[in-house]
């Protein structure tokens, strides 16, 4: 990342004037910083661990190849059912003919086949499928055993091939429940996303807070404001850090999708990607709202050691939204208060994301919440710019909010 013409900070500077120049400086300084690089690496490792560890734990590491030895042949219906059993268990099934039972046993011991079907009436394994060291997929073994039993029953009942086919290809009736079930996968995706959202909002807004405080305490703000307007300086800072944040979040989400696909994680199936996309959108909206709050807060400080004193009260709404959302995402039962919080700009980034994961929100409700957040952000930006302008050049002690609003 440099300052050469043609790089994206340079293009930003060209197209947005002073705001672009301020944003370009922020981008260069942040991306160059060790904190950003190490932070990104840590988050990528955490995301990879969150996706990979569950798949190792569940023993399912995605589609596996299963070679099935056939002793004594297999009827077409039974062959179709074994294929179906493979698909149901996400296995790629390859059928190989074995000349004899002895040959099948030899192949099983040698690992050339994972399981063998003997005369369509028996399944032979080297060792129990669930035991450690077995190559046979227990799910496939279980399904194949059940399906072969059904085929055997058809034969015993003397059904014609057409009747057997009719029964075999029957479709299940729809199953509906009165209470929504707990979708563990979406819940896990949702919680991982909430944790990332929380840390990212905290990190990026703290950058804003520290950045404003640094400019004020080093007095460079006086030199800058002699040239640019307060709103240009603040807008450039917010834009620059925001773009770095969006870039980092996009890298993390893309990385999560790639790792998820590579290991066949259940976290990114079903509504998982929708929840992630929603979290990315709410990261942008959440940052847009909170960055002004933190900028105004930073401008009231006098010294850099006041970061913690200021950051704690400012982060309380984020903490409330986060803790409430984690609780509801775990229980799967949002109450009325939670749904109200999903429409308030300070807590909407967390609460609305959970409602999406739980299928508890209509598209127009989601849109309404986003629009309320945008309107709230506009109001907050106007208020914060006013506070910033009045406070950032005042020195000689912490500036009280009452004094800034009063005049």
């Amino acid at each position, binding site marked *: 990342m440099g*300052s050469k013409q043609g790089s994206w900070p340079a293009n930003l*500077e060209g197209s947005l004037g002073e705001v672009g120049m301020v944003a370009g400086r922020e981008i260069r300084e942040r991306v160059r910083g060790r904190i950003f690089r190490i932070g990104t690496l840590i988050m990528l490792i955490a995301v990879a661990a969150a996706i990979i560890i569950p798949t190792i734990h569940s023993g399912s590491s995605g589609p596996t190849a299963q070679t099935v030895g056939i002793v004594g042949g297999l009827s077409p219906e039974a062959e179709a059912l074994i294929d179906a059993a493979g698909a149901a268990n996400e296995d790629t099934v390859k059928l190989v003919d074995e000349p004899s039972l002895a040959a099948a046993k030899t192949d099983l011991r040698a690992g050339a086949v994972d399981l063998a079907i003997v005369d369509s009436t028996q399944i032979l394994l080297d060792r129990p499928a669930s035991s450690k060291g077995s190559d046979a997929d227990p799910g496939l073994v279980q399904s194949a055993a059940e399906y072969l039993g059904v085929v055997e029953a058809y034969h015993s009942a003397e059904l014609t091939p057409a009747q057997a086919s009719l029964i075999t290809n029957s479709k299940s009736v729809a199953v509906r429940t009165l209470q929504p079930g707990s979708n563990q996968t979406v819940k896990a995706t949702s919680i991982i996303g909430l944790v990332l959202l929380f840390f990212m909002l905290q990190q990026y807004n703290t950058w804003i807070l520290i950045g404003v405080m640094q400019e004020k305490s080093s*007095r460079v703000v*006086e*030199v800058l*404001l*002699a*040239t640019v*307007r307060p709103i240009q300086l603040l807008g450039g800072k917010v834009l620059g850090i925001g773009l770095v944040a969006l870039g980092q979040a996009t890298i993390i989400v893309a990385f999560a999708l790639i790792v998820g696909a590579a290991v066949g994680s259940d976290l990114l199936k079903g509504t998982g990607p929708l929840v992630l996309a929603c979290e990315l959108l709410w990261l942008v909206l959440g940052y847009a709202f909170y960055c002004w709050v933190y900028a105004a807060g930073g401008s009231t400080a006098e010294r850099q050691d006041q970061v913690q004193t200021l950051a704690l009260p400012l982060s309380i709404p984020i903490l409330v939204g986060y803790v409430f959302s984690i609780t509801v995402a775990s229980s799967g039962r949002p109450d009325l208060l939670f749904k109200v919080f999903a429409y308030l700009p300070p807590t909407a980034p967390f609460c609305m994301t959970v409602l999406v994961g739980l299928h508890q929100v209509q598209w127009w409700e989601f849109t309404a919440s986003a629009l309320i957040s945008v309107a709230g952000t506009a109001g907050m930006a106007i208020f914060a710019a006013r506070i910033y302008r009045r406070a950032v050049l005042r020195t000689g002690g912490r500036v009280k909010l009452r004094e800034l609003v009063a005049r």
Partner: protein
Amino acid sequence: MSGVLEVVGLRRTYGTVTALDDLSFEVPAGRVVGFLGPNGAGKTTTMRAIFGLTDLDAGEVRWNGASVGQKERRRFGYMPEERGLYPGMLVGEQLEYLGRLHGLTAADAKAATNTWLERLDIADRRGSKVETLSHGNQQRVQLTAALVHQPELLVLDEPLSGLDPTGIDAIGQVLVDQAAAGCCVLLSSHQLDQVEDLCEQVRIIDQGRMVVSGTVDELETSGARRLVVRVEGDRAADWAQQLPGVSVSELSAGAVRLVLDSSVNSDDVLRAAMQAGRVTEFSFERRRLSEVFREALT
């Protein structure tokens, strides 16, 4: 490059404190003007007002007769009293950034940065972080930040404080050269000897009001006469304390500096000195700027 800065009727109060009280003055093109006053007189507030950094209750700042806005301020250079630079940013990048904020292209900002760093003899620190520089070099970088875009007006709040004599000479020469090139230079300082050397004009304010304004030459040749008398062996100058219409301004190294009322005849002073001992020096001198300053505030 030329222009005239006009400060017209500035008024600013903070609660019950009046920082600026109908303050007006002018800074002509091509001149170095000293802006003087005791602590709390309103100098920094005035300088901040020129850059729109202080809300005014009344008055306005004009450049070439027109009210100053952001467009004009981009052609001004400012060095605040509280030095302001990004401590962790590289010197060269920082100066280029500030140059670009003042409207320079990237190439021009880079070229101007290199030129000024060479001129101020800190080119070897281009790639250093500001926080690693000595106080004197930080001061030079700060001045470069005010100069990098070739401003038409330079406003410098205490630019010489904390500098060694070499630094004062280097920065002073830059300011004189800028004025010679047509730039308006307004600087505040408590180092009146340096102001006397650098400035052609001074504005002295107190409690937010203008108390003295004029050229250094006019101010030093106006007012009561100054007489320096040295009497051999006399270090107390008791003889001078008794003379009517005469006051002792300064006593140092055996010489007494006297201020004479218009009614005093210098021959009477000479006679009194001769009665005290052998007179080895007897000369009229100009008013010093420090005397102008003190007398303006009494």
